């Protein structure tokens, strides 16, 4: 996207606040004009007091009153300007953020699975802030800067051409100096940030692995390498800091020269051209005011560039292709028969995983999916829930093609317990009632009871009102899974999708989880990613997966008799 299009698109987001935008620009205009008028008026007052006995007392009061009013009004409009700009910034940030969040909800799972979450979060949180801050503040500064320059030019030229020319001609000097320094320090900065990045990376790695380093008595080597990088950082850091810190005194030096030149030409013009002392005072003030926007311009440009880069990252997400729109079909009471016909699917076109896969699961039966770690057991789950869409083929529930249903309708007919139990920050009660927010207290407690979760919930400090911290760190893995089971129990779906945990659950909770799973599958159709012998043996159908493909299917007995991959897999558990 080119810059102009990017900018236009961004500005479109401020459209609802057009009135405020207009008001803020008006306030900026007025406040800058008034601020510039102040030195002129001060000069006029000074000119009323030329020498002892030559003070124009009659002219002074109205001038002073006007000055006071101008000062008050300038302050008022300056405040109004900031106020309106703030209003626009924060509202735009909110809108853009909401839009982005909403967008995340419409993106296909493939996007969310294949992008780092930290990066997406940073777009939602940081990038949007940078966009709004950078753009709007950048523009305000640019706007006020331009008005200031034009205003000072106007007042200066009106007062005296020659002194004005001095200021106009000398000012770019400070700009050049700043640009020259920036250009010549860039590579120092670059090297500094590179080394800083290297150091941070090294610290992150070695401090993060400090236990490992200790275990291998590797402290000396790691410290040595750290010192090397750190010394390098000093070398580049010192240069970068020194050279960049040149710009402030140097621009000040140039400004001081301009100040002297204004003093000189002002005095000369006063002697030969009738410039008043008051006007010299005005010129001296303007010499500072006029150069300020020029000095700030580099910063503004950098800020705008950051904002643009961030905007691009935000728009990249907003431009992602959304999930296909929902169909309008409906599903009567679900019985639970699932049929898969001729299904083909691959996460990438060059690696097909399922080809012409067909499966019939009568209502109420249990399907176990087994296979080595990482063999793609979750693929079928992704397709059943339409987290991913098949390349071809149809999945039907009770004879209805699931792609003809709204996703929400389809998903409500399932109950899902994943291995990595996901709980959100909220109370235990809220987490159980997640699928049915309208559930009564009795129903919630009954579900917890049925999931064998009630006893441990009662032992929690605040029972059902205990807050679960982010990621549920205050609960054990097994307890989390029990809560997820209770959540599904409450929703009471006809089809279950269960992902058994491999380990990390203590024996007693494990027994409870298994019992809850068994109770739950009673009378329901269930797809279970299985690790437990009991689950596998009792399944009505076992799908054996390898490298993302279903390689065998059948019951425990038929598969063992076949002597294929399942046979190997099953007996490797007992190998020595």
């Amino acid at each position, binding site marked *: 996207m080119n810059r102009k299009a990017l900018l236009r698109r961004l500005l479109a987001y401020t459209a609802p606040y057009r009135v405020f935008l207009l008001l803020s620009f008006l306030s900026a205009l007025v406040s800058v004009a008034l601020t510039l008028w*102040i030195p002129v008026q*001060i000069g006029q007052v*000074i000119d009323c*007091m*030329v*020498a*002892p006995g030559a003070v124009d007392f009659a002219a002074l009061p109205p001038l002073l009153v006007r000055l*006071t009013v101008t000062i*008050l009004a*300038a302050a008022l409009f300056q*405040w109004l300007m900031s*106020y309106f700009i*703030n*209003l626009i910034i924060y509202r735009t940030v*909110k809108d853009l953020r*909401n839009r982005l969040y909403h967008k995340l909800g419409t993106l296909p*799972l493939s996007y969310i699975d294949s992008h780092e979450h930290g990066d*997406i979060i940073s777009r*939602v*949180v940081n990038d949007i802030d940078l966009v709004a801050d950078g753009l709007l503040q950048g523009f305000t500064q640019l706007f006020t800067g331009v008005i200031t320059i034009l205003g000072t030019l106007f007042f200066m030229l009106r007062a005296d051409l020659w002194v004005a020319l001095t200021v106009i001609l000398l000012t770019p000097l400070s700009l050049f100096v700043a640009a020259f320094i920036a250009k010549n320090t860039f590579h120092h900065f670059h090297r500094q940030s590179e080394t800083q990045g290297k*150091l*941070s990376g090294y610290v*992150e*790695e070695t*401090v*993060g*692995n*400090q236990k*490992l380093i200790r*275990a*291998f*008595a590797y*402290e000396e080597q790691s*410290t040595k390498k750290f*010192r090397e990088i750190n010394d390098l950082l000093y070398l580049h850091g010192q240069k970068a*800091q*020194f050279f960049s810190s040149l710009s402030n*005194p140097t621009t000040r030096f140039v400004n*001081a020269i301009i100040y*002297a030149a204004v*003093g*000189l030409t002002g*005095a000369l013009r006063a*002697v030969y051209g009738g410039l008043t*002392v008051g006007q*010299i005072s005005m010129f001296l003030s303007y010499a500072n005011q006029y150069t300020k926007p020029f000095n700030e311009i580099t910063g503004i440009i950098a800020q705008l560039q950051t904002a643009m880069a961030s905007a691009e990252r935000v728009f990249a997400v907003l431009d992602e292709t959304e999930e296909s729109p929902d169909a309008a079909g409906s599903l009567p009471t679900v019985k639970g028969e699932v049929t898969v016909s001729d299904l083909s699917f691959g996460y990438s076109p060059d690696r097909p995983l399922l080809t012409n896969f067909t499966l019939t699961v009568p209502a109420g039966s249990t399907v176990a999916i087994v296979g080595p*770690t990482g063999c793609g057991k979750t693929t079928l789950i992704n397709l059943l*829930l339409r*987290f991913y869409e098949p390349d071809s083929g149809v999945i039907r529930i009770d004879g209805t093609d699931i792609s003809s249903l709204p996703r929400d309708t389809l*998903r409500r007919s399932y109950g*899902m317990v994943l291995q990595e139990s*996901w709980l*959100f920050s909220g109370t235990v009660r809220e987490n159980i009632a997640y699928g049915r927010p309208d559930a009564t207290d009795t129903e919630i407690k009954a579900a917890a009871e049925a999931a064998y979760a009630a006893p441990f919930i009662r032992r929690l400090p605040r029972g059902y009102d205990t807050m679960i911290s982010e990621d549920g760190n205050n609960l054990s893995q097994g307890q989390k899974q029990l809560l997820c089971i209770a959540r599904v129990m409450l929703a009471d779906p006809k089809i279950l999708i269960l992902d058994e945990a491999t380990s990390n659950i203590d*024996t007693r909770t494990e027994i409870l989880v*298994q019992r809850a799973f068994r109770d739950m599958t009673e009378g329901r159709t269930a797809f279970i990613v299985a*690790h437990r*012998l009991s689950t596998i043996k009792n399944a009505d159908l076992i799908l054996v997966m390898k490298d993302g493909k279903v390689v065998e299917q059948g019951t425990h007995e038929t598969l063992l008799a076949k002597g294929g991959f399942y046979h190997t*897999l099953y007996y*490797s558990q*007992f190998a020595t």
Partner: protein
Amino acid sequence: MWKLLPFLKPYRKQAIVGPLFKFLEAVLELTVPLVMIRLVDRGVAERDMPYIWRMAGLLVLIAAVSWGFALICQYSASIASQGTGTLLRNALYKKVSGMSHAQLDKLGTHSLITRITNDVNQLQTAVAMLIRLVVRAPFLAVGAVFMAMTIDLRLSLVFVVVMPLIALILYLIMSRSVPYFRAIQKKLDRISLYTRESLSGVRVIRAFARQKEEEEKFYAAGDDLAETSVRVGKLSALLSPLTSLVMNGGIAVILFCSGSQVNIGRLTQGEIIAFVNYMTQVMLALVVVANLVVIFTRASASAARVNEVLAIEPDITSPKDPIPFPADRSKPAVEFAGVSFSYHADAESLVLQDISFSVSAGETIGVIGGTGSGKSTLVQLIPRYYDATEGEVRLFGADSRRYDLKALHRKIAVVPQYASVLSGRLRDTLSMAAPDASEERLWHALSVAQATEFVEKLPNGLDTLIDQGGKNLSGGQKQRLTIARALVGDPDILILDDSASALDYATDAALRHALRTELSDITVFIVSQRVSAIRHADRILVLDDGKSVGLGTHADLLADCPVYREICASQPGGGGRR
């Protein structure tokens, strides 16, 4: 913050020279308006052209000398601040290297990383500011008032009113907005929490069709944030208009009073200009002071966090006179004598309770139990990652605390549950424990760890570069590498802390077979939740809730350890099969 002063000590020269020259620069800066007064009052009034030229030349000269002084100051500042930062980072890194596991757990690696990087950077900025601005800004403010007094004592009273007024405005607005900023940060954290949850929980949210509710929650948080931001925006928008209002007001008052003064000849036009000038200077200087306060507040928080680390004394260290490792292999390799352990000081939460057992050299010991039973903790006491709260852990017949710590770590190799490898060449990560290990030794270790095949397949073999966090390796590959790495050091005791969980059953079995046949003389501890991983160990230690509830062979335990039977019953292949 002053506790960190010693780190500035090597840069004493810079820390004195820098501010000194900045001070001189400020003095020169204050004389500029005085020169301008003369230029106007004498030069213009008396039409004295040579004088005007001389004064303008003097202004240029002052500017040039100021510039030179400023450069000297900036140079000193850059050396002192970057140098101090470098020293601080070294000191912190060294401190972290000496920390015990308990200390690392307590501070958290994430927090330590921030302290070494961000906090030191904050302090570095503070040192630079200290040298560059701390002398200059207050001096300019006070100096401007002083100069104004020398011109006209009565008129300078305006400064006495204006200066505290500006300071008060700065203080009030800033101190009032700080709590808001904190609130905003909290609200922003909530936004990022909701976003994170919506991503990590995307399957659950969609499965329960709760997107709309999640969105509403997010929008509410956004509204809340925007509202607070607007409120603080209103407040901080006051800062600049109010201060310039007061400054311009001061100028107006000066102008108001100076009419009669000029009339009776007590004040000149040039002096009025100087007053206006000083007034501007005072305000600018005060704004800088306010910013300095902010920088130093932030830096003092950083300094506290850095100090906290520096104040830590390593709690697990080598003894003063370590004893050598005995050559005699008859003594038990590992012996626990009434060992109890707690991660926290209170005895209520004992993770291990009164554990005693003895393992002869060359024995393989399985350790099993549910989560939280203390398996991992138990084996971590062997290499002194933690010290026993009560009782004694003996190695080769002597208290483990009597050996040199590093030597001890070389004797005992631990393969942790979470396989982590350092970035760099595969060869380097393998030979961490023995930097001079021969090629042959590396390959042998790889073969025992069942890793030969995949390493051979890598494009550059042992010279393959591993990404940070081993991202270019699979979980199973990383795990096998960590096992090989442990073996390269030729340890006497090998501890596999649930480290085969990412391996499939067949590889796991082959690994155990290789360990038994190739390295029969080392003592091995295998910690696992899987019965299949430990059932063939010489003896199995069963832990339940921190207590030892059984020790014996698989058969013994099946016969008389109910907890072991229960564990077996819940696992495939663990049941009655022998």
